[in-house]
């Protein structure tokens, strides 16, 4: 009971000192202050933790898995890297191809026929060069087989191989 009484005056302090209970009182006060401090810090942290468990934060362990694995975050279709950058092909010198591929690759391939690294795959335009357009007039096609150009600039790497073939085909078709 003594320890619970109110210490409100200087006389109360003196009584505690004389009775030998002053040191116990100080320890009790310190413990209460520390407990209050821990509560002040821990309560917000616990609140934040609960919010994160509800899926409002980023987490991927424990009970948060179920809420994280919603259709929005897991099954939503990945945005495809449709943006393509222009590329330049110079057949006149037939040496340098500068191709900028899709955005996620984050690289610009500069391929040179003389300095092309062994690990680099051959550019698609060279691989497809031997393919001929399907036309009904092979005699007219022969007229265009030696068609040359100095440069092609294009924005769609996948379509680059067929551009000239398509142009040849277009002109041939119109000549039929």
């Amino acid at each position, binding site marked *: 009971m003594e320890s619970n009484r109110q210490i409100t005056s200087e006389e109360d302090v003196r009584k505690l000192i004389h009775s030998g209970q002053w040191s116990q009182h100080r320890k009790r006060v310190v413990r209460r202050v520390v407990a209050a401090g821990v509560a002040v810090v821990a309560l917000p942290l616990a609140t934040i933790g609960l919010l994160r468990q509800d899926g409002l934060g980023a987490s991927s362990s424990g009970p948060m898995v179920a809420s994280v694995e919603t259709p929005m975050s897991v099954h939503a279709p990945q945005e495809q890297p*449709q*943006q*393509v*950058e*222009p590329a*330049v092909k110079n057949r*006149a010198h037939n040496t340098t191809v500068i191709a*900028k591929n899709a955005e996620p690759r984050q690289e610009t391939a500069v391929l040179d026929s003389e300095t092309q690294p062994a690990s680099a795959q051959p550019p698609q335009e060279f691989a497809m060069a031997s393919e001929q357009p399907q036309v009904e007039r092979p005699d007219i096609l022969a007229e265009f087989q*030696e*068609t*040359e*150009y*100095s*440069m*092609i*600039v*294009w*924005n*769609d790497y996948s*379509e*680059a191989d067929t*551009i*000239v073939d*398509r*142009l040849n085909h*277009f*002109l041939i*078709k*119109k*000549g*039929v």
Partner: protein
Amino acid sequence: MKKIVICLFFVIALASTGLKAQTQLYLQYAFDKTLSVACIIDYRLEDDMTLDVTMLQAKDDASWDRLVADFNVAALPQNLLQSLADGNEVVLTHYGMKNHPQTPAVAKGDSVDVNNSCFMGIEYREKTIWVFHYSTPEQLDYLQGKLGLYAMEDCGKGVGIGDMFFCMNRESDEEQGLLKSFFDKK
């Protein structure tokens, strides 16, 4: 910033080749991911004749509609397009202004300015517009012979420069009738 640098690089690369209208047209559409755009420089027509050609191909109907509007391309009747058999193609050719080919085509009867006009071929099935940037009378003559005159023969229509020409391969009687019907309205 990255795009600006890349764009700047190609502008310089193209400018170094002496291109003007072609560069403008290409760069206007090159960054549209719904289009396949290409510019062929010095495409060889004959041994001593080359030509710059720009290709614009739409990847879907929406982008094709935009191209058609930009280039003032006449829309074909849907029944004609639907009636096309496999392998058939309707091609519309007409002239436009070289620096602004998306402006209305040169009207029938107008003289064609070699220095300020281009020749366009439109493939409906392929959703493709070919822009031929000719700069000499010889190039124009070649295009007229290669595209215009043959197209006129195919359609049996004696139209003059500046008009629109159609070309269809192996068209059926029904398709031919639809084509002529549409053509007569022009």
